[in-house]
Every structure is written in structure tokens, then in C-alpha cells.
């Protein structure tokens, strides 16, 4: 079956490395994500002070989306790009921080700036604000990367014209492990938007 929609570009961030369309475009020795994310931010000359207020999951998702969307010459106001993200650990990295702050039995002082990130879809909000996307956002949790469900969901959004493009993928932050894999699906591009192809890009085959 011929694909109706195509993958225009894809980005992968893991192990201190940023890859775009299969090519390594930035790499550092930093083993700690906080250093790596800051270095990546500086390397790509991003100017967005709010970045430093984000939690780890949002920083990771934000950077991967930045790499893909900065090549898209977006309009200031009319970008119908849906966001369909997934992961395994939801927002657990930040959930653990919030939990720590409320463990005392006496006075507790939870931080609102931490609590707000105890939802995985906040990273979709951050990307929507940054790129002025007034479009659909959905965040799914799966045991492992589920290419079939992402493919069907994106296909439906495009087929029913609810979105012009869909930025899909996986953003996981758990303990010291992190991985982002995002890809942009639209009408005019080269790589077929099939489950098989998505899987091979995800597993870097």
C-alpha cells in the first residue's frame, strides 16, 4: 500500500548526542543531563530564558522539537501542527521531586514550580507556547515504543484534516536515562509514514 503521508524529518537525543535526519549534529562528553541540555541550548544559540525553568522532561522534548521545527519556517500565528508524544515513565522524574518535598509529617513546602511539571503533557504545552501551536496535543503512556498507535493516530489527524502536520514520538526521562525520538509527518516528503519505517528510525537500524 502506498503511504499517503510522509516523514519529513526526525531527531534523536540520547547519550549526550543530538542527531537530525540520521546525522550527528552535536555531541558532548557531559554525562549529566543538566549540563548536556545547557550545552545543547547554547550550541544551537537558542534564546528562550524560560527553558531554564523547565523540568528535565520538558527540556528534552523542547530541544528535540526545536531541532525539527526551526527548519520549518513557521508562521507567527497559523501553525496547525499537532503534537502526539508518548513515553513509559510519564512525569515520574519530577513526581519523585514533588514527593520528596511533601514527605515530612509536619510543615511541608511543596514547590508550585515543581508541581506544575508533574504531568507529562506539560512538555507539549511548552512546545506549543514556543512555536505558537494552537493545535491538538495528546500524551500517551506505553510499556515500550508503540509505533503502530502513533502511526494510526497521526494518520487519522492528517486524513481528517484536523492537523496539517503532526510531530510525533517518544520522550522519556527516568532516573539518569533519557531518550527523545521525534519525527514530523506531513503530506509532502520522502520517507513513507509506515509502522515499519517508524520502528526502524526509532531503533536506529
Amino acid at each position, binding site marked *: 500500500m502506498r503511504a499517503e503521508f510522509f516523514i519529513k524529518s526526525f531527531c534523536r537525543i540520547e547519550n549526550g548526542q543530538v542527531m537530525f535526519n540520521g546525522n550527528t549534529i552535536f555531541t558532548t562528553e557531559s554525562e549529566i543531563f543538566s549540563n548536556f541540555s545547557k550545552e545543547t541550548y547554547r550550541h544551537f544559540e537558542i534564546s528562550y530564558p524560560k527553558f531554564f525553568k523547565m523540568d528535565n522532561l520538558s527540556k528534552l522534548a523542547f530541544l528535540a522539537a526545536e531541532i525539527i521545527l526551526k527548519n520549518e519556517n513557521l508562521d507567527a500565528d497559523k501553525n496547525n501542527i499537532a503534537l502526539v508524544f508518548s513515553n513509559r515513565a510519564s512525569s515520574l522524574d519530577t513526581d*519523585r521531586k514533588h514527593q520528596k518535598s511533601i514527605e515530612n509529617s509536619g510543615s511541608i513546602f511543596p514547590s508550585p514550580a515543581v508541581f506544575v511539571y508533574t504531568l507529562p503533557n506539560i512538555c507539549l504545552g511548552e512546545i506549543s507556547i514556543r512555536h505558537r501551536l494552537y493545535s491538538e496535543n495528546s500524551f500517551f503512556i506505553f510499556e515500550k515504543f508503540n509505533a503502530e498507535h502513533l502511526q494510526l493516530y497521526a494518520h487519522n489527524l492528517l486524513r481528517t484534516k484536523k492537523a496539517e502536520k503532526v510531530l510525533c514520538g517518544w520522550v522519556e526521562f527516568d532516573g539518569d536515562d533519557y531518550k527523545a525520538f521525534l519525527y514530523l509527518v506531513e503530506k509532502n516528503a520522502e520517507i513513507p509514514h509506515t509502522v515499519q519505517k517508524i520502528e526502524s528510525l526509532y531503533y536506529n537500524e
Partner: protein
Amino acid sequence: MRFFLTHNKIISSLGFDSKAVVDAISNGNSGLKIFHNPELLPSPFCASIISSEKIKSEFNKISKAENFKKLEQLLILSLAKVITASKIELGEKVGLIISTTKGNIDVLENNRHFPKERAYLSELGKTIKNFFGFKNEAIILSNACVSGVLAISVAKKFISEKKYDHVFITSGDLVSKFVLSGFQSFQALSPNPCRPYDKNRTGINLGEVSASVLVTSSESLSAGVQEILPSESVEILGDSTCNDANHISGPSRTGEGLYRSVKLAMKEAKIEASQLDYISAHGTATDYNDEMEAIAFNRLGIQNVPLNSLKGYFGHTLGASGLVETIIGMHSLERNTLFASKGFDELGVSEKINVISENIEKPLSIFLKTASGFGGCNTAAIFKKVEK
């Protein structure tokens, strides 16, 4: 292809099935109470909480409660009823969606005897899947306070793409120390029963419910899999989700995302504002949320459509709220009754909206459900009574 919401079940402090909960609402009863429980929050708080003992005794009728967390028991109990009533066999073409924001987050607390791995939402998915023997992995949707309505839209998409013939949705969140303390840090909790859209509103109450529903389609129905639909069934006419692109916690001052999502849902439903009989709005009773909704509804020209918030009956039930409120809406249509927006007395938003102040009986056919949440997300869906 046409899509339907059919069999349903609600478990809340107001009752243990949809009918009991709707009866309670119809009688103006609220499940909100003031609690003094320092283990949950140092200061007194108002919430709707389901008795753990009562759930356990219900659950022990179908399995062993000690092996399951409270939320799991709730989800299983509500879903079991829907699966049985539907008479659908759980084959390859039957999907499962779980809508929750925090799942079993309370296992992160130190004194819990369940392993911390249970905090992973995918573990919750496995528990529910295995209990019933679903053939497919659970799809877990965690999209803040719009999750419950968005889950309906997600089910519709997967049925539309022929992945599934039928999708069971179950939803739930607990009133935990985790969420109470967080909303407290946002200065968002009201110490008294909440008063959506009222001049004297002072914030939200949290609540816990479990709500489950079956989503199916005209094609699956004509295949004869389905028994006769329950009389509260509705057709999904249209739905949309839009982001405010404005702020991660504060709603847009112009109601941009809500405005856009309702507009697109109405476009898909091919209906005019004048055809809406009722709006089941989000109405959390915070200053900013209620004000934002009033602005969006006025921009849409639907400010005269009778509207309520159901938060005064069972609080803000987070990942379940959109679904439980949709189910109440289904029953509202079936009973041809608009339910009073509990806690409302005097309009306290800057633009006029038509808040239902007492129960009204009148013929009803189409309603709009809306929800808005952290992350700037907004979802709208339009439902129509299935005429016999």
C-alpha cells in the same frame, strides 16, 4: 461511520452506579465533605472521597482486594460492569483506554507495602488488561484535566482507523497527598464546597471517581455484536482539542484554545449555536478558569445556552472529570432534565453566561462538553441523544 457512547458506569461518593449518582445529583446532593486528615494535608480540606472499606467489600465479591490498589479496584469495578452489560467478547478488535493523570502515585510514599514500580502508569495498564484478559496493550492517556474527554476522541480515532471495533474507556484518579499538596501550593484549594461561576467562589475541591464507558461505531453495531443500546446512549457528533499556546498553568485570558476547540467541534458536528441544548462546562471555581470560560463562550455566541459545572457534586476528579461529566450529560439528555450547577448563586464572571440555577425539565437532544487543563490544553466534544 458514526460513533456512539453506550454502556457506562460511575463510582463516586454519591453512589456505586451511574443511576444512583445521577439520582443524587437530581436531588441536589453533594459528595463533598470537609476532612481533617493531616496524613493527606496539614490543614482541613474539602473533597469528595470514596470509602476504601466500601470499595473493598464490593471488590471482594469479584476478586481479592488485598492484591489491588484502591485505584485499581475502582477502575476494575466500574469497567467490569460495562464489559458485562455490553456482552462484547474481548477479542483482537477490542481496545482499552485508561484515562488518568497520576494513577497509583501514592506508592511513592515510603510506608506503602506495594512496590514503587506500581507508580508506572504502564503497570496500571497491565493490571487492568490482565484482570479482564484484553488482547491488546492498554492505551494510557495522561493529558491533564482534559484526559477524560480526550479519551473519547482517541477511541473514535482508533475505531475510525479500523484498529478496533469497540473501545472500553476507564478513568480515575485518587485524592492523594501528592495532588492535594500540589494544588495547595497553587493556592487553588477552597476550604469549603466549591462554587463554580459564583461571585464568592474561592477555588477548587478535589474529588475521586471512577467512570467507564463503551465507545463503538455504526459499523460494529450493524455487525450485530452489540445488544440493544442503553437508552442514555449518545452519538459523538464532533470533537476537537486545541492548545492555548499561552501559559503552562494559567488559562488564556482570551479563552483562545477553548474558543478554537469548540468552534472546530461544532464545525465537525455541522451544528449551529442555536442547536445546542446544554453545555457541560469545566467550571473548576478558580477565578481564572471560570472567567476564561465565560469569555470563550461569549466569543462563540453560545453564552445563552444553559450551562452547568458538576464540580459542586463531586469536586474536580482530574483524569476522570471529562468522562464522568460526559456520562452525567448522557443521562441528563435521557431524563430531559438540566441539572442545577451546585454552589452557584450570583454570577461572578465579567461576561454573561446562562448558569442553570435549578433543575429544569425540557426536551433535550444535543450537548457540548468542554474541559481545560494544565499545559494549556482544551477539549470540546458534542453529543446527540440516540433517538429510538
